[in-house]
């Protein structure tokens, strides 16, 4: 199949959506499909050969933060040219309401179009106005995918209609043979936390509150905190002795994530809310580290109701201390969780997820109907074409 994928955000800055698009494109190429990705990018020479750049993105304030997007007549022309030359069987746009390439591609094309919704913002006035403006473009989308139940809910509320939920994938192979960092976990046991240390929703304070109790049960345990943000304020409550057993790593490069996760006897995700999926849980499982996570709906789903990991009562540090202490003194249970966790992570491997996405492509595809440039956005094109009446149906 010839597949055209549109990424609205800058390829230069690795982020959620561009990372998703890159993983998807590579998985589809491995399956033998022809893939072309259209994305804004500043540095042409660094691009993988399946990416076509629309040039340097422009930074604009969008949705409360600065996003690097591509728009305007030159970008629109490049989109049209890409569609004309691509001869795609399916066009797959991501985050179609972002004011960037995706919505331009919807305008410029017709035929089998798939759109994936990533964000799950609750109150975005921008999105509301856009959904009115971009309505015409949205009407051409035949199949909608949401990456989470939250993204699906956002879509239903703001745009109407429904979507198939297909979660993000995990590149299991990048985590399977993860080597722990030098000296970790070592002779002693360790707990790993990965996430912004200064963001309350990530729940570091819940773990820090539970930590003294865990240390009373397991005096030699160590805590490894990785991720951007300064956690010093949160750690102030610890005694000097407890504090001495805490290592703060700071920001971790994506390629080092696996060894950080593998450095723990257990991995703890004490997030207090706002999580729509929990990819990092799956990454820890793929690394073979047993997972303890708060009982958020999304997390419990990823943990397969406790089969692939242990949940504790959200924001309850007493419960967390008990769950972690029990797990640290039970090697058999940890071995079982490692095994179940690896199996669970494999279910979300990109190869599996890409297969589901191909199923969506196939479910809207008809032999002979391909993605074509659409002139209907222009009045002349429309007048020249007339309407389809039942007698004129040919395909």
């Amino acid at each position, binding site marked *: 199949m010839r597949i055209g994928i549109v990424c609205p955000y800058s390829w230069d800055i690795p982020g959620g959506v561009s990372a998703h698009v890159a993983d998807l494109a590579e998985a589809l190429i491995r399956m033998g499909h022809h893939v072309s990705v259209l994305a804004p990018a500043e540095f042409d020479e660094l691009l993988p050969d399946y990416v076509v750049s629309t040039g340097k993105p422009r930074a604009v304030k969008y949705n409360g933060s600065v996003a690097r997007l591509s728009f305007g007549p030159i970008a629109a022309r490049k989109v049209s040219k890409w569609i004309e030359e691509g001869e795609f069987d399916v066009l797959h746009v991501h985050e179609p309401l972002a004011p960037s390439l995706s919505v331009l591609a919807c305008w410029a094309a017709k*035929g089998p179009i798939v759109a994936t919704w990533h964000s799950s913002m609750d109150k975005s006035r921008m999105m509301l106005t856009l959904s009115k403006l971009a309505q015409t473009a949205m009407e051409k989308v*035949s*199949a909608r995918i949401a990456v989470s139940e939250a993204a699906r809910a956002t879509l239903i509320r703001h745009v109407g209609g*429904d979507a*198939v939920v297909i979660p993000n994938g995990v590149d299991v192979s990048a985590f399977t043979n993860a080597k722990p960092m030098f000296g970790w976990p070592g002779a002693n046991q360790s707990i790993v936390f990965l996430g912004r240390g200064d963001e309350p929703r990530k729940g570091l304070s819940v773990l820090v509150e539970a930590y003294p109790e865990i240390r009373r049960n397991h005096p030699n345990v160590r805590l490894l905190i990785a991720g951007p943000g300064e956690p010093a304020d949160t750690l102030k409550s610890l005694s000097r002795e407890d504090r001495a057993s805490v290592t703060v790593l700071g920001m971790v490069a994506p390629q080092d994530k696996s060894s950080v996760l593998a450095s723990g006897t257990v991995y703890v995700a004490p997030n207090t809310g706002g999580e729509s999926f929990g990819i990092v849980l799956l990454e820890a499982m793929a690394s073979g580290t047993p997972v303890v996570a708060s009982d958020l709906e999304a997390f419990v789903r990823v943990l397969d109701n406790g089969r692939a990991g242990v949940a504790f009562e959200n924001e309850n540090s007493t419960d967390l201390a008990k769950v972690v202490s029990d797990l640290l003194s039970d090697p058999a249970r940890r071995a079982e969780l490692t095994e179940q966790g690896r199996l669970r992570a494999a279910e979300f491997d990109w190869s599996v997820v890409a297969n589901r996405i191909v199923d969506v492509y196939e479910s809207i595809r*008809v032999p002979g109907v391909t993605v074509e440039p659409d002139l*209907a956005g222009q009045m002349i094109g429309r007048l020249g074409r007339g*309407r389809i009446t039942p007698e004129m149906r040919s395909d």
Partner: protein
Amino acid sequence: MNSQSIFLIAAIALAVWYLSHQAGRLDRLHHRIEVTELALHGQLVRRGGIVAELAAVPGIDPALSVLWGQAAHEALILQEVASPERTQVEDELTSILVMTLDEPEEVNEIRSNAHASVLLDELAQVCDRIKMSQQFHTDAVRDCLEIREQFLVRIFRLAGRAKPPVPVDLDVQIPPALAN
């Protein structure tokens, strides 16, 4: 030309543009409905083929073979894409699949035949696709009806002679032993 007639011409131009815009939207939506319906049909035909092939696998017990073979045959000989008859026949095939492929143990036994196992995987996939195809078709119909019901669209008969679209009311259950 006085200001009144300029205003009138502008108003007429605006109205023409608006009607043309709505007609274009309808055109695109009718096209989307057609394509999603054909895609659904394509997957249904594929399912019929797979079930017919399953029925012919050597070693499948004759009762199953007859049930599957007959239901698949009924579905495959129909020509119409969308008709009450098509819906009925496809629903019958679905219910036979749901009834016969309900016990995981039995299905595992059928899977001991390598060819049958491949076909069951394909069947699971096609059932999944049928379910999605139907949803995507229903989405398109709903989007289209929303516009067709608008006052101006009805008054100016922008939908032309195209009949109001109807969603395909299909039973899209996935056989229990094939789910996931």
